[in-house]
């Protein structure tokens, strides 16, 4: 356990993963190798996109070395985003579970309500730096779209959000807010009309508008250099957390927990702790309604390597290689692929994976609200819901009081329309009826 290397992580945009099989990212030398995490990642895209990815990589490399970029990024993260986000001791929850001190890193207090903004700000600034005038983004739950629309309004970038028609229906509140902020919503009526299809549509649009558009990918996936860029822009979560916990507790956490959809909030939190060998890193996937294919989004249930949407990683796919339908109560975890870097660290055993079902999620959602006065996003609630399990496991195996940090990736406001019908169906229906115009 190394308590003194926090300097290494002080500036998120230069934070790099020091893993034994991977040389550190060297800005000048864009070798194919650094597009991979072990065997995961890469650039599985039409040749058409290569120039744009190269351009992005170059811009990012320059940005990382540019004090101006760093300053602008820090300013926006602070003034627009509201960073640093707090790390709070969840005293009631800790007492409730016993044997562990639990801390929460509250990214839900960021502007637009989730960690997504960290990355959106970073990439929007890159867009400016590349001299592009338009940002496109895919969104499922709408949180990434919302973050993107917000920073585009702020930075005067034209903004197009690709969203499956099904998601537009389900997530209208976010659609409404994105439109208020001037974003154009591009409905995607292909496939299942959800996130995966929005990615395809955005990618296609990008191919046709490379000169003016930047595709602002929302999680640590897609073709290189996206996984690294997103990871780096999110790494500030872990950087802040590591610093603060050392100040407060004079020790590193024993466990760090995060939910994993695409993987950006998990990697954002974990990256600063990767070289702290004694810190256990736990990612929680969406177990959905059950383990039948199509009813969950747990890529790690039976890790199956595939190549789609521009990268190689674990995918939920059928034996023919077709990506499968997924289900989760939380729209943000409902995606068939996973960050290649998470796939790599899963393989290495550095990050463990747990699964929370839809019911678990609602339990976690209620648990945190009641004990800590924080209503979490349903995505985050997946991570929360595994705390009893994790603590029980620790109780059996160690004497020492555990120190657990959970990444509270977002706040729950956005989930009203999904959670309320579960928690309080009659009231909810009544309320909706009163808001329908009288006919």
């Amino acid at each position, binding site marked *: 356990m190394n308590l003194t290397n926090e300097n290494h992580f002080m500036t998120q945009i230069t934070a790099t993963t020091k893993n034994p099989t991977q040389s550190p990212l060297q800005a000048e030398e864009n070798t194919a190798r650094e597009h991979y995490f072990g065997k995961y990642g890469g650039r599985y895209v039409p040749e058409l996109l290569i120039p744009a990815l190269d351009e992005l990589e170059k811009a990012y490399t320059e940005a990382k070395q540019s004090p101006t970029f760093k300053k602008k990024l820090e300013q926006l993260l602070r003034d627009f985003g509201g960073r640093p986000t707090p790390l709070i001791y969840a005293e009631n929850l800790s007492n409730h579970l016993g044997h562990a001190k639990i801390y929460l890193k509250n990214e839900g207090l960021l502007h637009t309500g989730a960690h997504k903004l960290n990355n959106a700000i970073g990439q929007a600034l890159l867009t400016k730096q590349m001299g592009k005038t338009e940002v496109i983004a895919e969104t499922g739950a709408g949180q990434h779209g919302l973050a993107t629309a917000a920073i585009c309004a702020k930075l005067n970038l034209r903004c197009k959000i690709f969203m499956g028609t099904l998601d537009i229906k389900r997530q209208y509140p976010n659609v409404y807010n994105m439109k208020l902020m001037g974003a154009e919503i591009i409905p995607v009526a292909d496939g299942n009309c959800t996130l995966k299809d929005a990615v395809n549509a955005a990618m296609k649009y990008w191919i046709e508008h490379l000169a003016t558009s930047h595709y602002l990918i929302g999680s640590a996936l897609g073709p290189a250099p996206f996984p690294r860029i997103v990871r780096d822009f999110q790494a500030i979560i872990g950087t802040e957390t590591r610093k603060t916990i050392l100040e407060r507790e004079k020790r590193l956490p024993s466990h760090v927990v995060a939910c994993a959809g695409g993987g950006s909030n998990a990697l954002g939190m974990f990256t600063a702790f990767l070289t702290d060998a004694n810190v256990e890193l736990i990612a929680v996937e969406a177990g959905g309604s059950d383990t039948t294919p199509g009813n969950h989004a747990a890529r790690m249930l039976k890790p199956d390597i*595939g190549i789609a949407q521009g990268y190689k990683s674990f995918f939920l*796919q059928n034996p023919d290689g077709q990506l499968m339908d997924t289900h989760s109560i939380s729209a943000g975890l409902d995606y068939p692929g996973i960050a290649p870097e998470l796939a790599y660290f899963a393989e290495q055993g550095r990050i463990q994976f747990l699964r929370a079902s839809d019911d678990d999620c609602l339990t976690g959602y209620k648990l945190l609200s009641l004990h800590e006065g924080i209503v979490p996003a349903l995505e985050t609630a997946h991570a929360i819901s595994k705390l009893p399990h994790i603590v029980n496991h620790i109780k059996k195996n160690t004497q020492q009081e555990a120190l657990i940090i959970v990444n509270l990736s977002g706040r729950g406001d956005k989930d009203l329309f999904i959670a309320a019908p579960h928690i309080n169906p009659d009231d909810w229906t009544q309320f909706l009826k009163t808001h329908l115009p009288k006919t």
Partner: protein
Amino acid sequence: MSRPHSSNPITTNDIDKKLAAKTPKPLHLMTHIVAGYPSVEVNLQTALIMEKTGVDFIEVQIPFSDPLADGPTIMRANHRALAAGMTPEKSFTFIKTLSQTVSMPIIVMTYYNIPFKVGIDNFLSAATQAGVSGMIIPDIPYDATEPYLELIKNYPVYPIFVVSPQITSLRLKKIASIAQGFIYTTLRIGITGSKTTLPPESLDQFARLKQTLSIPIAAGFGLSAPEQLNSLIHHANIAVIGSKLLDIIENHPSNINGRKNALTDLETFLTECNQTILQSNKTPKSHP
């Protein structure tokens, strides 16, 4: 027009033969179908019409759930074929029948996850056995560290690369050194102004490609009317027609009458295309 490919044990295949055919054709045609859409029966009927109307190459797409590089029409066709139960295995069964029925060289197009999941060697064997001459996998760049690019050398199937107008000279040169059959470039004409002449950017692109490549060039573009083909003559060797054909099929109600109408329309359209090309041969244009 065939060239030696030192790295490949099979020196020529049907693609080369077709392009080197004695009857000089100012522009070859390659047309696209999605295996299983709307059904293999219609696929076969369509292919017969293609051959009959003078199409030179047929591109058969094995459907994939997430066809990243395809526009809405082709994407929909992929999803419908899958929904109707199409698989890679069934696709190859169909392709085998097809290759026994038509003489056009068959180019398979699919996304890398299909061979990756099925197994590259399995996939390439199946393709070989089905009589496939070329393979387009748009989401595997030439420098991807994947065994496919090595393994395909062991099969009589040409790897066809797709390049973009923005490609760097360095990458183009590297691709040129391993490409076989032809190189496929994407470009858009007909959007900007004139429908029958190429815009200056496209002319520059072709000039640049020709300078680097000794291999024939196929050009895919958003064709909407046969006379647009004129603009490609003397610039590309092959014109690729994709979405337009699916549009014709899709826009007819899927009952027997509708389908009959669709196939008739398809035939009319392709006939016009071929005639446009053949006529242009007689009335040479003033191109640089």
